[in-house]
């Protein structure tokens, strides 16, 4: 609840037109892309600049009003679901690209800039911003930074974290700090920039970011390899890397996914194959040619039943269809789609996919797995129906087992979607009690009143660890 006094103060900061506490206005910020989570905020506020953000935060700190910063609400961990009410802070006014610095190769933006708009703007100048989450046409930089989002190009180019050079952050007490700079080298003080990356809005509000750019690669080539055997596909991945080739993209689809994709897109994929790899390389054309040739050889040596290298951009596009249609095909199957992102070391992929299929069978649920084979980031996806409580329970058990197995294989519960509310009960499995305690200490120091996105990352209680008997 927001007292009338606090409300008037907030309105005096942003103006009545930027303060909305109508029922409908609150309802449309009660959800994000995470299935089964919904909760109304008390108000929605759209600040116009850093100063207003700072003033809002001060009021919220004084009156203990929770603040949920929100980009486009595409996160998959209930990270922007206002589970404890309070205000949702939106950045529709703070969505400008402030500067593209071609000498220092940086771009400086406000948090509400849409990822793809930024990518297009820098590409128009021959520059390259690699992090490309599948949601980039609507996700915001503020969201990307706070989830430390990855993308298809992550294997070769890294994730959002690797491109954040400097931040302007409003802390819970209203202080505005600037971290980092346009510097390749900078060891003055703690690396706070990295601390805020992936902090899911729980430590402060990002109001400006300077991101690193690199020159645009000259060319790019695409190929598709089909396998009768999961292990063979996984061996190809390992062998490619062992041969000191780091492709831009190394995407993977398993058989259940293939069946669904083929039924939906009818692109002539053989559905009896057990796995598909989509491989791309970019760079100078001689290097790309050489790498593609070598990788095609490796795939064949590893018993790929077919290896197709695209000869034109149109053909490349056709090859990418399979991977691109995965989500559409899966999302259409059932009313609810649960998209997870358990991640394991690259070397354990075949094992993990096999276990996922076994777990799905054990709980009698459909789980299709696709994802970024190159970096071990898998997307086991379950088409289900949230109204069927009994099935949902089995789905939850299955995923719990998948998380446990991922950790057992040296992996993690989430590779890129974040913890939020959704994964909070499992976080201790990955970090241990001491790890959580260290994080809590940081949280308490920076946000003693727990107003910054409360209820996220830290769970009220940890799930009992499932014991896998296999």
């Amino acid at each position, binding site marked *: 609840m927001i007292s009338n006094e606090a409300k008037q103060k907030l309105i005096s900061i942003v103006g009545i037109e930027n303060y909305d506490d109508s029922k409908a*206005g609150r309802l449309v910020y009660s959800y994000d892309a995470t299935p089964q989570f919904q909760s109304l905020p008390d108000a929605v506020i759209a600040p116009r600049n850093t100063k207003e953000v700072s003033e809002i935060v001060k009021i919220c700190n004084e009156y203990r009003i929770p603040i949920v910063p929100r980009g486009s609400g595409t996160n998959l961990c209930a990270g922007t679901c206002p589970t404890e009410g309070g205000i949702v802070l939106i950045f529709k006014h703070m969505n400008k690209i402030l500067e593209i610095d071609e000498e220092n190769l940086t771009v400086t933006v406000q948090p509400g800039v849409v990822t793809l708009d930024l990518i297009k703007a820098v590409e128009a100048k021959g520059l390259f911003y690699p992090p490309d989450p599948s949601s980039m046409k609507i996700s915001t930089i503020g969201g990307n930074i706070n989830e430390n989002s990855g993308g298809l190009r992550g294997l070769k180019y890294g994730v959002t974290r690797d491109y954040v050079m400097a931040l302007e952050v409003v802390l819970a007490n209203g202080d505005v700090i600037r971290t980092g700079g346009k510097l390749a080298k900078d060891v003055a003080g703690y690396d706070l920039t990295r601390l805020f990356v992936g902090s899911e809005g729980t430590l402060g509000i990002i109001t400006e970011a300077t991101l690193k750019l690199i020159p645009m690669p000259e060319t790019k080539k695409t190929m598709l390899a089909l396998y009768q055997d999961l292990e063979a596909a996984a061996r190809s991945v390992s062998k490619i890397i062992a041969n000191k080739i780091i492709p831009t993209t190394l995407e993977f689809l398993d058989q259940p996914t293939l069946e669904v994709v083929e039924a939906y897109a009818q692109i002539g994929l053989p559905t009896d194959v057990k796995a598909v790899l989509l491989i791309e390389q970019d760079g100078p054309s001689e290097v790309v040619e050489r790498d593609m040739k070598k990788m095609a050889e490796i795939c064949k040596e590893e018993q790929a039943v077919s290896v197709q290298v695209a000869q034109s951009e149109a053909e490349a596009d056709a090859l990418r269809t399979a991977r691109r249609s995965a989500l559409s095909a899966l999302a259409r199957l059932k*009313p609810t789609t649960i998209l997870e992102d358990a991640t394991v070391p690259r070397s354990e992929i075949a094992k993990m996919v096999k276990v996922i299929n076994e777990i799905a069978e054990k709980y009698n649920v459909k789980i299709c797995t696709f994802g970024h084979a190159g970096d071990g980031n898998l997307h086991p996806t379950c088409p289900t129906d949230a109204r069927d409580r009994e099935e949902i329970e089995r789905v939850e058990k299955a995923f719990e087992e998948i998380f446990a197995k991922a950790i057992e294989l040296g992996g993690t519960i989430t590779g890129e979607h974040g913890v939020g509310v959704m994964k909070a009960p499992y976080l201790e499995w990955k970090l241990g009690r001491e790890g959580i305690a260290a994080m809590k200490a940081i949280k308490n120091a920076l946000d003693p009143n727990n107003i910054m996105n409360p209820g996220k990352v830290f769970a009220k209680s940890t799930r009992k660890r499932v014991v896998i008997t296999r």
Partner: protein
Amino acid sequence: MTTTKERNVIQQQFKERMNEDELMNCMRCGFCLPTCPTYIESGFQEAHSPRGRIALMKAVVDGLIEPDEDVERTLNMCLGCRACEPVCPSGVNYGHLLEEARDIIQKNKKHSLPVRLLRKAVFEELFPHPHRMRTITGLISFYQRSGLQRVVRNTGLLNLLPAQLKEMEKILPKVPTLKEMKHRPNHLPAQGKTKRRVAFFSGCLMDTMFMETNDATMKLLQLAGCEIVIPPQQTCCGALHGHSGEKNQAKELAKRNIEAFEGLNVDYIITNAGGCGAFLIEYDHLLKDDPDWAARAKAFTEKIKDISAILVELDFHKKGLKLPSQVVTYQDSCHLRNVMKTASAPRILLQSIEGIEFREMKEADRCCGSAGIYNIVEPEMSMQILDYKMEQVKETKATTIVTANPGCLLQMKLGIEREGLSDRVRAVHIVELLLEAADASGFTADQQ
């Protein structure tokens, strides 16, 4: 204003009638947001986005929120352009959800007396009756030809109208006379070899106000080798009714049309208005719960095809069409593109014309803001969208704007007026330009 009692009934009907599977199917990924014109033009307000609207509909069903003014407002603000559908990974059929929601609200809302009378007059007494449409159009014709229009314009009488209608008056096409409208053909032979036998859906507005466009369409069909049947029993497609929450009437019209076109033994039913075509092609959905009609509706919808699509199928673009040098751009009809899935055919045809330079405008697939009667009921948003559109048009330096739907055509003409470009830029329906090209290049039909 809705009363509490009305709201309760509306809420109840949302629970009973809204397709819950379809609502749940939205996974709230937000992929539709960047394509939604009202989301963009409202300054990125989730309430004016497809995801927000679906969430509101679902919340009404779930009882989380009442169908209050704000909910109604965001539904009214929607253009119904359906640009949110092709981009949706989940395949959510937003258009159907919107139609159902609007129908429920309309049915249970007590309009003020004048609004009620106007709705009744337009939806029940006018559009479904071809002869009345002709009479009205005849009156306009009289207005235009008798000198009355000149008098009215000169005396400043128009200033009495709201700005919106005043501008509308200027862009009305030169309409045919009553006599011209009375003698419409029922059958036309192909020129040269008969390659297809088709039926032509002439439409209510199209066969009156836009009769010249219809004539051009039929002429092109003949040239392309089509024998044409034009069943006189056909009537208004019902789109206006369906989109304005008058679903029962839309169903009645659908049945009349299905009957009129059944048993004609034709390859296709051809339409030349994206808005009508898209509604016709979804008759199967409209009548899906009516056991007597579902199958008949399905057979009907399978035959619907837009004029551009059949012309491309019959290689009309390979016939050496020519026109004097000019820059041409194309504004998609939302429903032609998003529902009938016809986007490349018009472009193939235009690009085939020698002499013209075809320049794609930025975001040609974004709605022009016409959207049925949207530009009359939501003038502010409509004009904001139109102004953006005209910026993109001007960027191309086109002198000819081609459209594929009468609403879009009028809206583009309105845009040209508003920008003061009427001496340099024209807007035409694609069939008019194609016929111009056929005439200019001495087109002859294939003899074998």
